[in-house]
């Protein structure tokens, strides 16, 4: 059975990025169809509360400033159809407060520092920091077992403490947007399990739930480029006679969920070349926690899709035994996520790529959208830019 649909724009993606863009442009009266090659949204899990690759960022101090809670709130609040709460140690004294709304949490960031230039960078950017050493620094790591801590020969490592860092409740944020769009656009405009997507002169043809759809578009189709949609982009690339862009490098996160005796409240520790963690804040209203889980992330730059799993198990083991002083531990869950590093992405003759660029010119154009995964802050910024471009109906080049 073939169903024909006429629309202004088609957004193809698996995560939050197409939803945010759809929300913005549908508010301006454009007709939108969202296609998801997956059976559901967010199965690819491409949205993060903060940027775990911030240490590899060329401008580390700037990334820290971006993670200031007020800065993040300014970006994420306008895109969300409801309240985004701010959790800080002052929250309990605030007036109305919705504990079920997505939140931005004020957190401390503590990290080991091996660079002499970093204090200078922080000073230039007016980032307040504190230098710590020994037991007082180690105590900031959640789950530490002080019974095993050697006070006679304390940890000689120097740590920096930043008190204005934050993360976003990515889970509630993205599901809030999805629910809003499901109500606003209806199920007929959000099509899941889209398979065999083909570009035709007037738009797109695809299959979903054993039906064939032909979509005629006025303003084009936008493919949000994530590892899962890579094969679709590659197929379109094959249709273009000349290859004019490179493949971005891949970043991998290995995520371990370790069971702990204490209530660690989903505190995240990131183990990297630099050891660092987000420590808890006081006055958190989250009472729904069920499991005592310590989440450990290990990041890897320039990875491939065929990396061996559990590469960092030794590091995690050494960290848990050596730093936290646990004699044994249980792994409840382990996952791997892949992200593209768009800084490494170049197109021929254009070293700084646009946020979206045309793959084909007909039927309003077929575009690839970069920065479709990562932290909520980055995705929100990208969505604002792309929706502005679409609304202005301008040529990207």
């Amino acid at each position, binding site marked *: 059975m073939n169903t024909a649909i006429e629309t202004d724009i088609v957004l193809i993606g698996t995560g939050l990025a197409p939803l945010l863009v759809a929300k913005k442009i549908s508010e301006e009266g454009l007709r939108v169809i969202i296609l998801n090659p997956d*059976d559901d949204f967010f199965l690819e899990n491409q949205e993060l509360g903060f940027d775990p690759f911030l240490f590899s960022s060329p401008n580390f101090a700037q990334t820290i400033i971006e993670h200031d809670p007020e800065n993040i709130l300014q970006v994420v609040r306008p895109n969300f159809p409801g309240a985004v709460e701010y959790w800080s140690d002052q929250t309990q004294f605030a007036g109305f407060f919705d504990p079920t709304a997505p939140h931005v949490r004020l957190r401390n960031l503590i990290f080991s520092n091996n660079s002499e230039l970093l204090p200078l960078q922080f000073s230039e950017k007016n980032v307040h920091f504190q230098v710590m050493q020994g037991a007082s620094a180690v105590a900031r790591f959640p789950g530490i077992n002080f019974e095993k801590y050697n006070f006679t020969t304390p940890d000689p490592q120097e740590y920096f403490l930043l008190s204005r860092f934050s993360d976003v409740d990515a889970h509630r944020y993205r599901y809030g947007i999805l629910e809003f769009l499901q109500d606003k656009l209806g199920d007929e405009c959000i099509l899941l399990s889209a398979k065999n997507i083909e570009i035709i002169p007037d738009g797109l043809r695809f299959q979903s*739930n054993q039906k064939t759809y032909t979509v005629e578009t006025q303003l084009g189709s936008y493919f949000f480029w994530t590892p899962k949609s890579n094969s679709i982009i590659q197929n379109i690339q094959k249709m273009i006679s000349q290859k004019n862009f490179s493949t971005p490098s891949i970043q991998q996160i290995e995520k371990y969920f370790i069971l702990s005796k204490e209530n660690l409240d989903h505190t995240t520790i990131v183990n990297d070349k630099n050891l660092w963690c987000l420590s808890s804040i006081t006055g958190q209203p989250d009472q729904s926690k069920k*499991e005592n889980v310590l989440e450990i992330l290990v990041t890897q730059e320039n990875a491939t899709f065929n990396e061996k*799993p559990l590469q960092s198990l030794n590091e995690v083991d*050494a960290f848990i035994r050596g730093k936290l002083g646990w004699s*044994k*531990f249980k*792994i409840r869950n382990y996952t791997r996520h892949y992200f593209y590093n768009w800084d490494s992405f170049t197109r021929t003759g254009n070293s700084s790529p646009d946020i979206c660029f045309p793959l084909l010119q007909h039927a309003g154009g077929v575009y690839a959208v970069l920065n479709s995964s990562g932290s909520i802050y980055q995705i929100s910024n990208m969505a604002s830019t792309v929706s502005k471009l679409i609304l202005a109906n301008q040529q990207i080049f």
Partner: protein
Amino acid sequence: MSLTIRDGIFDVVVVSASRNQNWPFHSVRQFSKLVSSYGLTVGLFGGEDIRFIGVIPNQTTGGFLIIEDSQKRIHRIESRAIIKVENPSEMPQYFEGFYSSAIIPLSAAISLLQSNSLNLQPNPIILGSSNRAFRFATQLKQQLGIAAIVIETYKGWSSKKYNSWEVSKRQFEQNGGRFIEGQILSLTEKSPQLWILKIRDNHGVQIIETGRVIGSGPYFPEKQWIEFPDGSLLFEWKIFSLHSRTENVEGWILDEDSANFLAAKVVKMLSHNVGPSKDKLDSIHRRARTRLKIAEAHQSDPYTPVYQGKWLANWEKRKIQEHQNYTNYQTSFFPVIECFERITCQECVTTCPEEAIIINAQKLKTINSDKCTSCNLCVSACPTQSIQLLKQVENLSYAQLRLSWRGLEEVHKNEAIHTLNRRGEFLGTARVSNMHYSELRTDQLHPYFEQIIEIEVPHHLAWEVRSIKKQKQEKAVAHTELKAPLSASEMVEVYFNQTKRLVKNGALLIQVLFEMGYNRPEDSLLCKDGTCNLCEVTVDGINQLACSVKIRKGMVIKLDSQKNESGQYICHCQKITAQSAVNHLSEKRTRSPESFTQQTGLMKGKCHGLNCKNAVTGLCISQNAMSEPSITQNWSNWIDWSFPKLDWNIGKKN
């Protein structure tokens, strides 16, 4: 101490998800033989020393298998195709009180019965009407004198019928078993070791007092193998027959066919050039596919004869006689094969030394009476007692029947017995005129006799009588009375929650917990091998697994007080209620199982879905079956690849 990971690379890996003595199973060996004959490297990982930790899928195809050996060394095996071998799951679907210490899986019930640690009385209930469930219930009655009730809860249960299902059911009913179709409402504890099960069937609400509820499954139609995601070369393969061929012939045959099918599929996907043997591979693939289709067709349309009262309808009788080419009175014993299902079992065909049993164009077994010597071999070979020998001589007032008898007690010559029809209904009494041989056999439970008996019945009953029952069977000694009390030297004193107890020396602690009635829901021997880590108890101040600790004198055992077994929870690890899961489904915000479990947190707790997977799957299928068939499809084609499969202990010696 640092961890060392050992790496390995194979083309195809087959891994057993649980520890098993019989590894590699027959079907796994068959698979391996076929795949390796095409030049692919195959790794088989299983047995008692290998612990399966999980599979980590690749972005494209294949993935990494993580296993731990007996010395706690970690092995990371890379493979282009991974096949995880699972046993069919046995824990029940959701009803109020489904997470209860009354409920144990069938495999655990069998092992506990073998060690005399399980009290099933009164009215043991078996959930799910698989062949295995019926066979277990029949064994309970025949060998131990315990009458069980089998309850089928799935509305479309006819699609779960496997080869010989009708025969298994008939044997069960002939032995006085009760089969009920109904919906379970609740299971509540009345007193220690006694529970009340409420069910609703066609007659209304019934209340049954039971000593134990045994989960058997499958609770909904399950595929024998699934690939998820499509094209990923990551398979889950459910093996039905883990034991010998005689114990479960239809499962054995089905497994063999699926092994051939799966092997041909994997070889075709991995080897682009199989050379001249391609035709042979195609032929194996086609043959296996055809046989699996036959088995599938049988599941959807099994043969059930029509009865008028307790007598077979005339046209059914004619149909049976025509099928046997039976025309008139015979002068010698004539084999009657009442196997009208196009099943793949060929035990009788292969057993017959004269090759008198042939498979006709309709794929049914028929007899060539010219060749038959009435040797009885086919009667004893048929695993489902579907073959009898019949002799009707003209002018003789009675007919003679030779039947197979399998029971705890031996049948003697000249003994008066009850005759029964195909549904186990009483038809009259008869005398055993002859007994051909008697053999003491053993199976998973206990030894039993196997005999061929000859009886004399009136002519009009020759096509009605199909089995017998020993008279005065009610005098059979109950299983509980059979147990001889242990002598004082076999008992030792232990401290159990600060009180002294006399228990069996050297017995497994988990068996003792069952005997004393102190077992918790997590002590249901879910994994059979200690991999699930759920049955933790404190022994002499150290946390240990009850399924791996043996009783010794003076042991101090501390068990947490019974947990609050709230019937409202569908996930007891994370305290998630069934209502909240239903609400989530009714909002229709999710379509895929992954997203549903991610959002609700179901199957993400301590047991990783071991207790609740069936309950969650059943709930989702029943909620969506009518409105969204595609969602039901998603659930039945889904494999949970979340890693690790169970909590993974690092740095702890079990």
